[in-house]
């Protein structure tokens, strides 16, 4: 990773997302879950659990993780990686929050770069 070339897309305000919760952003066929932690950090993951594609946006958010609603895998919001004994990673996207506006870089997929 060298030069930072980003395409920031505004997706809403931070207040649209409940603390310890998530909202979805539709991007063509893909759904992206945008999470807000208890201390107002924002993260974006593809809304697909690495286990069996469970919608992570519907999970319980705790610390910087989300527990998948289907079979309770715990996924890191920072890396998209499954925690503990489970293995797998979900695509995750860069996020910027400025003046309460949330921007995603939908062209950039951290996990695969």
């Amino acid at each position, binding site marked *: 990773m060298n030069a930072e070339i980003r395409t920031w897309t505004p*997706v809403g305000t931070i207040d649209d997302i409940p603390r310890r919760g998530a*909202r979805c*952003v539709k*991007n063509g066929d893909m759904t992206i879950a945008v999470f807000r932690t208890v201390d107002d950090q924002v993260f974006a993951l593809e809304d697909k659990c690495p286990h069996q594609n469970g919608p992570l946006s519907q*999970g*319980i958010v*705790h*610390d910087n993780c989300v527990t998948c609603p289907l079979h309770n895998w715990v996924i890191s919001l920072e890396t998209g990686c499954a925690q503990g004994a489970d293995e797998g990673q979900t695509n995750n996207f860069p996020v910027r929050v400025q003046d309460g506006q949330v921007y995603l870089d939908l062209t950039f997929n951290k996990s695969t770069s």
Partner: protein
Amino acid sequence: MVNNCDKKRLVVVGNGMAPGRALERLIERAPDSYDITIFNAEPRVNYDRIMLSPVLSGEKSFEEIVIHGDGWYVQNGITLYKGAKVTGIDRIAKTVTAEFVASGSGQAPLQPPISVEYDKLIVATGSSPIIIPVPGHDLPGVLAYRDLDDVNAMLLAAKSKGNAVVIGGGLLGLEAAAGLMEQGMSVTVLHLMPTLMERQLDPAAGHLLQRSLEARGIDVITRANTKAIVGDNKVEAVELDSGQVLPADLVVMAVGIRPNSGLAEAAGLAVNRGIVVDNSMRTDDPEIFALGECAEADGEVFGLVAPLYEMANVVAAQLTGEESKSFKSSATATKLKVTGINLYSAGDFAEGEGREEIVLRDGARGNYRRLVLKDNKIIGIVMYGDTADGAWFFDLLKRDVDVSDMRETLIFGQNYAGGIPLDPGAAVAALPDEAEVCGCNGVCKGDITGAIAGLGLKSLDDVRAHTKASASCGTCTGLVEQILKAQLGDAYNPAVVTPMCGCTDLGHDEVRRLIVAKEIKSLPDVMQQLEWKTSCGCAKCRPALNYYLLATWPGEYEDDNQSRFINERVHANIQKDGTYSVVPRMWGGVTSASELRAIADVVEKFDIPTVKCTGGQRIDMLGVKKEDLLAVWADLNAAGMVSGAAYAKGLRTVKTCVGKDWCRFGTQDSTGLGIKLEKFLWGSWTPAKLKLAVSGCPRNCAEATCKDIGVICVDSGYEIHFGGAAGLDIKGTEVLGNVASEEEAIEVIGALTQLYREQGRYLERIYKWAKRVGTEKIREQILDDRERRVELYERFVYSQKFAQIDPWAERVAGKDAHEFQPMSVATMEAAE
């Protein structure tokens, strides 16, 4: 991850205590290493056969002696075929074939036979009771004592409170006799030999035992040779060689067991008394192990669990490639599990050359002890009455200790060894590490102290889980507790519980107590005041805390939606593809043309792919898109329907049968009562889901006797049941009591629900809560103590004021709108 196809297939024939233990050890050592299939001729899971006697006497229920419930097999990915008897082993093709046992006589089996392939096979077919072929041995009413079916048959026969004759005065026979007596039968024990339990007891102890059985009202006839069992269509009497005739409504034959080796023999494996195995537990076919009572190792067959569990350890080690582990039989001790009678025996106590004995008789207390010594070492122990020193003597025996130095006081036991009386705690502390504490599981004191120190164990349950000590027959529970006390000192708190989750060291009950005591009314406050270790809890503790706060402070606490599992957050059940299912209430299972029409319209309007009747007497619409939920609910609301809470840790369904209005057997208006109950209870949150049913008569068409709470209507009123289960575990309800009117039934059920709401741990169903706190305690508070009942009932009614608001209508009106709409739809320029 191991792929299923790469996994070796392990097939087990028989699901008794021995293979159960072997699989447990195998999974501990190498989870996921085998694809495991078990066939069990008995139509049930693995249970503690040893504890059948307490089930017969009524001290325990079957559920309490289950070792592995259905959930265990599911969790470990094991396929268990119940009621499937293996009829053949093909060692060339490496397959076994099993037939399903028909459930009733004359009925065809439910399923055709199946064959499965194995890479490794374990034969653990146990043994069969010996039936002496006297005339009449096959009459109905003649039973053996081996499995739960025998116990159930005995319990049924005992309902008549008639006469029982037990043939055989050994361990099993006497336990059966004591159990049948507890059930109200008049019992006679027939024993061929001059004294009881002659294989374990010397004549003196045998006499003492006979005296105390007789004192309890059990007749004992020794030197009794059975000539015939007589009766026309069922047993009526037993006739002895002496000419004596004893009336009998039930005959139990407990005269010994014979290893079940027929299947192995037919497969061409070497069989002597049992299936011959080497000390790696392999038969003469290296891919086939034999284990348990069916196996013969070192020319010996075994009938007590301790050596069988040792075999299980060996098989598990061998299966995971640890080939050095081998089986060695060692002395085992015997105890009789009859409440109030203590006896203990081990080793060899026959008289003989060069043997000496030390005897202690304490007539006043009914104690008797005899030690047999050879070359200054203990080789045999018989104790009757006070058996507390059994483990100590047995340890000296097993370790071959030269006892010359303590001979003078030896017989008085450990307290006096060396002349200084010790208190019981000190006596336990003084036991050497090699002393065996739990005979069933072969656990030594050192194993226990090592586990306590190494794993930081704090409670009896911990020790049971990690070492198995006291987890089988339970007679050493006291000793294990002493060890915990000796090692942990004041830190040992018998009531210690496991923490709620990794975020805290506090257990559920402690957290609830503190929420009340400190008047904590919000989630962040709980975490602050109770010193949570994480910033905002986890997916385990947050839903639990949210429930505890809600149940403790009705009307004050504001529900924290973000701490609820998705289903409860959006009031619908998430499906595997991310869509939702919608289940409206159908009060008491009754519906109408207009409700059905509204459902039909919704299904068509929103193109809902599946409509299904649930197991809870209502209709489920599956595959609804999240964005459509609000509109679907709006339409259902308009037709008068509310959320069925099919997603909630709260009231789910109240099933009913048609009852008196239509049914020719109905005694009361079961449908009406069911509807009243559902209308009274709906909306309430409970520790786990709550399901009810009301049946109009004991035919029980609403299946009320496996529900959390059930009502059986009878002529005189309503029989209230609770604590049933028919999910991962299966358990019939307990009867709470009878009431005369619908009003009382509703009051009792409201109070019961409230007590459960206040005491149940999050996710603990009623049957588990009842088992933890005790059915009797619950009955006292709900049925016997009217004042307490009314208090509870009123608290429930109060909390319902804030709970009975239809969540669907609230959301249609705008609540939590963010849940149902995407935040945005990104419109991106094509990426470069």
